[in-house]
C-alpha cells in the first residue's frame, strides 16, 4: 500500500502544482492597445485604450501605466506616461515641441507601450496619422453649410474624397445631427447641405454647428465648430423678484403663506387651549 500512497501523494501534488502554474500563466494578461488621435479646434490629444480578451470578448484593463511617444525621424519624443481608468482609457494632450513637430510634418506616428510585469505582458502599438484639417462655413443667405476636408500631401493641402463627415448642432448635453448622421465627401473633399429646422437657439438665436469625422483609419478624429444665428431665439421667463416656490423667504407665494400658517395657527391654538386646560385642572383642585 505504501508505494501506491506515495504515488497518489506525488500525483496529487503534481496536479495541484500544475493547476497553480497554469493559473499563474493565465493570470498574466496580454493586453491590446488602441491609440486614437483627436483634433478638436485647436486642441490635439491622444486617447489610449487598453483591453484584454476574456472568453472571446474584450474587457477594459484599469490602472495600467502606458508610455506614449511621438516617433520623429531623429528619434522618439516622449509625450508622457498615463494610467488607464476604470474604462481602460487614458488621455494625453499634444502640446509644446510635439505640437510644433507635427505641424511641420505630412504624416506622424504615435507609439504607446506597456512595460512588462509579472501580471502584464510587454506590449506596444503605434498609430500613423496623416495631417488633416476640417473647415465649416455657413451662408446666411440660403442657410447652407459647407464642410471641407483636406489632408496634407508633400506640404500642400489636398481634398479628401469619400470620407464620412457628420454635421451636428451642439446642445448642452449632447448634439443633434443636421439631416443624416453622416455625409460622404465629394471629389473636392466637400459636403454641402441646407439647414431647414427651427430648433431653439440661445437668447439671440445663436447655434453652434459642429462638423466631425470620427475613427478614420488614416486621419483619426477631427472636428471643428462655427456659430450661426439660425436658431429660434429663446426668451426664458424671468421670475426673479416674484413670489414663487423657488424665491427667497420674503417672496413666498401668498397661498403658501396663508394656508399652512392658518393650519399651524389652528393646531397650535388647540395646543394652547389644552395647556390652559391643564392649569384649569390644577385650579379646580383648590375649588374642591
Amino acid at each position, binding site marked *: 500500500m505504501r508505494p501506491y500512497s506515495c504515488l497518489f501523494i506525488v500525483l496529487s501534488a503534481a496536479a495541484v502544482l500544475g493547476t497553480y502554474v497554469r493559473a499563474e500563466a493565465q493570470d498574466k494578461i496580454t493586453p491590446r492597445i488602441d491609440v486614437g488621435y483627436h483634433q478638436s479646434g485647436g486642441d490635439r490629444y491622444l486617447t489610449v485604450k487598453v483591453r484584454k480578451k476574456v472568453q472571446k470578448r474584450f474587457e477594459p484593463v484599469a490602472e495600467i501605466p502606458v508610455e506614449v511617444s511621438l516617433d520623429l525621424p531623429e528619434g522618439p519624443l516622449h509625450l508622457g506616461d498615463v494610467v488607464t481608468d*476604470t474604462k481602460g482609457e487614458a488621455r494625453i494632450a499634444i502640446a509644446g515641441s510635439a505640437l510644433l513637430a507635427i505641424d511641420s510634418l505630412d504624416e506622424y506616428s504615435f507609439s504607446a507601450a506597456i512595460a512588462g510585469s509579472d501580471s502584464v505582458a510587454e506590449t506596444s502599438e503605434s498609430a500613423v496619422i496623416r495631417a488633416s484639417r476640417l473647415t465649416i462655413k455657413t451662408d446666411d443667405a440660403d442657410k447652407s453649410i459647407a464642410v471641407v476636408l483636406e489632408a496634407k500631401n508633400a506640404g500642400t493641402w489636398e481634398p479628401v474624397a469619400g470620407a464620412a463627415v457628420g454635421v451636428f448642432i451642439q446642445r448642452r*448635453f449632447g448634439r443633434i445631427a443636421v439631416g443624416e448622421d453622416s455625409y460622404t465627401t465629394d471629389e473636392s473633399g466637400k459636403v454641402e447641405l441646407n439647414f431647414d429646422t427651427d430648433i431653439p437657439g440661445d437668447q439671440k438665436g445663436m447655434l453652434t454647428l459642429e462638423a466631425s469625422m470620427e475613427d478614420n483609419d488614416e486621419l483619426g478624429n477631427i472636428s471643428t465648430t462655427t456659430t450661426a444665428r439660425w436658431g429660434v431665439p429663446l426668451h426664458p421667463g424671468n421670475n426673479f423678484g416674484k413670489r414663487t*416656490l*423657488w*424665491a*427667497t*423667504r420674503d417672496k*413666498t*407665494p401668498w397661498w*403658501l*403663506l396663508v394656508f*399652512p*400658517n392658518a393650519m*399651524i395657527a389652528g*393646531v*397650535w391654538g*388647540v*395646543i394652547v*387651549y*389644552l*395647556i390652559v*386646560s*391643564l392649569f*384649569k*385642572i*390644577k385650579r*379646580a*383642585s383648590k*375649588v*374642591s
Partner: protein
Amino acid sequence: MVREKIYQDLLPQKFGKAGVIWVAILAGFCFLGAVAYYRQLKYGLVVTAMRDYVSWGIYISNFVFFVAISLVGSLVTAILRLSQVHWSTPLTRIAEIIAVAAIICAGLIIIVDMGRPDRFLNVLLYGRIQSPILWDVIVITTYLTLGVLLLYIPLLPDLAIIVKHKNRVDKWTYRIARFLGGFWKGTPEQQRIKERSINILIVTIIPVALAIHTVTSWLFAITYRPGWDSTNFGAYFVSGAFLVGAAGVVIGMYIFRRFYHLNDYITASHFNHMGKLLVMLALLYLYFNINEYLVPAFKMKKPDEEHLRGLFTGEFSLLFWLVIILGMILPVLVMLFRSGRKPFPMFAMATLIVVSAWFKRFLIVTPTLLHPFLPMSNVPESYRHYVPTWEEWAITMGSLAGALLIITALARIFPVVPMDETIDEMVREQEHAKANGSAAEKTPADLVTPGTHDI
C-alpha cells in the same frame, strides 16, 4: 382587596436584575453612538459613507422609521377610542409611550444628519415655508407636543394614585408623580375638563398624525426621481406607519405582559384583536406596495427600469424580497389563523414586521439615490455604492437604543397600563356581562365593585 391587587400589579416598581442589565445594555449602545457622533462632529460627515449621490443614508431611513412608528399613538389611542373600541384601553399607555419615544428620536436623528447641528436654529430663523423640510420640522414639533399631552392628560388620575400610595413606590417615582399630578383630586370639574381635553386631543391628533407622515413622504414624493415620483406616497407611508406602529405595540404588550406579570390586564384576547388589526394593516400596506411597484414596472420607463431591476433582481433584491415576504406576507399568513394570534406567535410576527419595516425605509431612501437621471461620471467607485460606516451604524443603533431607553424610563416611572381607565373599562364590561347574563373574561375587573373610583 381587589383594588389592592390592581395597584400592586400596576404601580411602578423598581427594576429587578433583568431590568438593570437591560438598561445597562441600552446605555452601552447609547454610549457607543455618542462616541461615534463625537467623531462625526469632530471630523465632519466624511466619517459617514454618504457622498455626492447618496446624501441620505441610514440616518434618514432611521428617521422615517421613527416617524412611522410614532403614528401608533394616534391609531391605538385616538382612532380606536373614537371608534368606541374599548378593548384597546389597557394598550393606550404603551402606544403613547412608544409614540413619544419614537418622535423624540426622530427629531434627534434628523439633527444628527445635519453636518452642522449648530446651525439648526437657522432652520427656524431663516426657514422658507416653500421647503418641505420646514413643513417637517413644524409638523414633528407639533406632533411631539400633542403626543406628550396625550400621554400626560390621561395619566393625571394614575399620578394621583401613585401619590396616594407613596409607601409602595420609591421616592423618585413619588416626587415625579407629585410634581406632575399632585394637583389631581378627581373632582367633577377636573374630570369634566380632563374628558373634554382628551376628546379634543384625540380629534386633533389624527389629522396631525396623518400630516406628519404624509409630509415625510412628500420629502421624497415632490422630487422627480425614480422610486419617489409617486402620487401614492402619502397613503403608502401612512399605511406602512400604521402597520409598524401596531406591531411595535404588540412587541411592547408581549414584553410588558411577561416582565411586569400583566397577564390579567393584557390578555390573549388583546393579542387576538391586535392580530386581526395587524392582518388588515399588513394587507393594506401590501396593496399600496403592489401599487407602488407594479404600476411603474408595467410601464418600465427607462429611469424606473434601472431602479426597479435593482430592487427586483439586482443589488437590493435579497433585502427587498425578504422585506416583502417576512414583513408582510408571512405575518398575514400566520395571523390569519387563531393559533397565530396567540401571544408568542404575535410577538414573533410583530418583531419580523418591525425589523422589516426598518429595512423597508432603507429600500425607499437609498436605491433611488444610486440611480440619478444623469449617469454618474468622474467619481470614485465608492460613490456608486452605499455601505454605511461603523459610525453610522453606531449612531443608528444608539438612537434605536435611545428610543428603547426612553420607553423603559417612562415605563419605570408611570404605570404601563392606565389604572383608572382600566378599572372603568372593566367595570363597564362586567356590567355589560351581567346585563347579558354571560360570564365575562376572568380579570381583576370581575372582582371590582362597580362604580367605585379610588380618586
